[in-house]
């Protein structure tokens, strides 16, 4: 469903993403791990068609993102980092706007709004201004926007960032549930989340993919490591790796 080939992104002289390739099939939930500044968000922004890659290709459901951006974008839902929202709108009118841009009008639009309001537990704030929402509600509103058209591909940039433990659990189980018939990529810093929700994980460091596999197989990557946490620390920090080798 998602095909990423030799993706490279250069900002000025800095190589933010360096030859990243991976693919995600239907029914897979891919966890995207890496330290801050490793190139996770930049990669996701290229996959969603926001950034133009310096080179490489992205295809969504077989549609090339660079050649037919509008068609490809129609097939995916995206939750950007920090869940941006139009602050002058209400929750329902914001979702209505997004539905219209997704090509839903009239009754289909109303149905889509009601569906995601229900799915994301937003019914109690449907007519509240986005500006007055708490962080958890804001996040869920933006999340609702990403699934309003029931896309085949979901890309979520830190979907659990800033949520309380209950909400985190909710979002995680939602991702897991939807993962059955979609292709999902989500980035996170929380490693238990990967074990709880992902069928596969990629660790990215300094723009390069340094590990790709199931959470179990990643654990076996470093002999003697007990947790994913430890694996992460060792493979994303070359200095320690060198010291250990020596």
């Amino acid at each position: 469903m998602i095909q990423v080939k030799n993706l490279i992104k250069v900002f000025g002289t800095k190589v933010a993403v360096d030859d990243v390739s991976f693919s995600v099939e239907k029914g897979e939930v891919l966890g995207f791990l890496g330290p801050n500044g490793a190139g996770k968000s930049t990669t996701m922004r290229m996959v969603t068609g926001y950034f133009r890659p310096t080179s490489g290709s992205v295809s969504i459901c077989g549609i090339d993102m660079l050649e037919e951006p509008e068609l490809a974008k129609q097939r995916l839902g995206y939750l950007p980092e920090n869940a941006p929202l139009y602050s002058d709108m209400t929750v329902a009118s914001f979702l209505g706007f997004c539905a219209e841009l997704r090509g839903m009008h009239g009754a289909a639009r109303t149905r889509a709004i009601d569906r995601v309001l229900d799915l994301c537990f937003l019914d109690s704030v449907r007519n509240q201004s986005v500006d007055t929402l708490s962080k958890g509600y804001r996040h869920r509103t933006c999340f609702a926007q990403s699934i309003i058209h029931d896309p085949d591909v979901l890309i979520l940039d830190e979907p659990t960032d800033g949520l309380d433990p209950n909400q985190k659990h909710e979002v995680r189980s939602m991702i897991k549930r939807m993962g059955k018939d979609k292709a999902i990529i989500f980035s996170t810093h929380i490693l238990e989340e990967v074990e709880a929700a992902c069928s596969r994980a990629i660790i990215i460091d300094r723009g390069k993919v340094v590990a790709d596999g199931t959470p179990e197989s990643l654990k076996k990557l470093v002999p003697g490591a007990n947790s994913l946490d430890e694996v992460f620390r060792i493979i994303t920090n070359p200095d320690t790796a060198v010291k250990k080798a020596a």
Partner: protein
Amino acid sequence: MSNRAIQNTLAVFKREFLAYFNSPVFYVIVVIFLLATNGFTFFFSRLLDSDDVSLATRFFVWHPWIYTVLAPAVGMRLWSEEHRLGTIELLMTMPVSPWQAILGKFFAASVIWLIALALTFPIVGTVAYLGDPDSGPIISGYVASYLYAMTCLAVTSAISAFTRSQVVCFIISVAFCLVIALIGDPGLTQTVVNAVPNGMEGVVQFISFFSFMDHFFEMTKGIFVLRDVLYFVSVIVVALLVTDLGLRSKRA
């Protein structure tokens, strides 16, 4: 344009248009605009003291200066706000082409001005009551005034695409609109011509050729020339192209 393209443009237009009413911006701007146009017409141009009720020299003449300040105030939120809130990332990952978004937003701001300008209608009633004005110059004056406003809005749209700060966008846009309003001024042009070394007069004359004012005054006099309309339309098109360029550069 396909059906879908029109629907997308309309969706962006509707959101942007309603956003003006959800904030005090629209009301503040309209009130100031009406106070300014009427104030200048009655107190500075002393419309009531003269025997001549031509709107061109007493009413429309002030519009470019008012637009120089007020049009950027309306246009500054167009893209700066998207950059600041981060919603640009949402908008640009929707199945919407940048052009649909640019046009939707630009038309929203333009219709806001259409409403503001339409609310100056009592002045037409006033001159019609006082005398017997030609309707031609009034109509072409309004068209000229509206085109001028749209041009300032398009320029502001272009500048807002490059910055996330509405204040920066406002100041640069006002400065820019002021410069294009001033460069055609005959007095100013003459002063500059006198100041520059020999042989450079042509350059100064050439630059003053790009003035908005000449085209504006030609039209307010009631001389409706396609050339002047095309002038404003082409500046608008260029400004919207620059908007697209700005959005691209942010996503590069």
